[in-house]
């Protein structure tokens, strides 16, 4: 899976979505759309959030899945929350 670029390689500002297309009927939509907040996170953080949701929001289950202790997993979540807060600001 290709990595979605979220920062401009030239000036490092956040990128916007300017075109979306339908692979079934070739419809193309142009405009200026913001990337979802979660898309701005590194891929491993996105995977963590996905696993967290799929485990029903249980850090204990996550700890077992990742073979890490509960406080380590909670710290990982806290760091992602901090990153999301920074992105939203």
């Amino acid at each position, binding site marked *: 899976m290709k990595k979605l670029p979220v920062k401009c390689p030239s000036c490092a500002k956040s990128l916007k979505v300017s075109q979306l297309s339908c692979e079934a009927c070739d419809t193309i939509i142009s405009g200026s759309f913001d990337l979802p907040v979660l898309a701005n996170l590194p891929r491993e953080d996105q995977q963590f959030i996905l696993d967290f949701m799929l485990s029903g929001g249980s850090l204990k289950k996550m*700890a077992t899945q990742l*073979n*890490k*202790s*509960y*406080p*380590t997993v*909670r*710290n990982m979540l*806290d760091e992602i929350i901090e990153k999301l807060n920074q992105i939203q600001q």
Partner: protein
Amino acid sequence: MNYKLLYNPFERYQERTLILVGSLALVAGAVLAFFFKARFDGVLDLHFASQIELWQAFADQGVNVACLLISLGAVAFYMNKRTRIIDMLAVCLFARLPYYLLSVFNVNGLMVRISEEILKDPMALAKGDIAIANLFLLLVFSGFSLLAIVWQLALLYNGTKVASNAKGTTYTILFVIAIIVAEILSKLLINY
């Protein structure tokens, strides 16, 4: 082998495992201290005595763990209000593990005997009159003691850091203060 587990098992193992291992080690450590007449009279202290009661061996370990829990727990809660007491208990119990085996050095009252010999003639060490075997044993004991202290401190530092997600210089400074406070508190409680 994953060497990180030696100084930071807290990222991987659950608190129940750490508490179980730490508690069993505490009991074993107290029994060893009783048999080899070792007094852990402070969180960073170890002295050998000519006589020791079993309850004293357990009280020493209990007071040391409690003092570490109070002082480091306060730092952890200051750094992060969501710190769980059970994680800090796991840290304080498990981190004492490297210290317990030092008691064995006093097999047949060996360390007490060497200490008494040195105390009889304190200048013997400077004059080089001390038996080579005794000097060697003292050096080995000092080396292992230093290693055990550093190992214990590394475990406490990393454990508190994981339990509270603490970072930065503030945490390091508070950690040092907490260890000094725990040492003073445990010394006072055990000796008076």
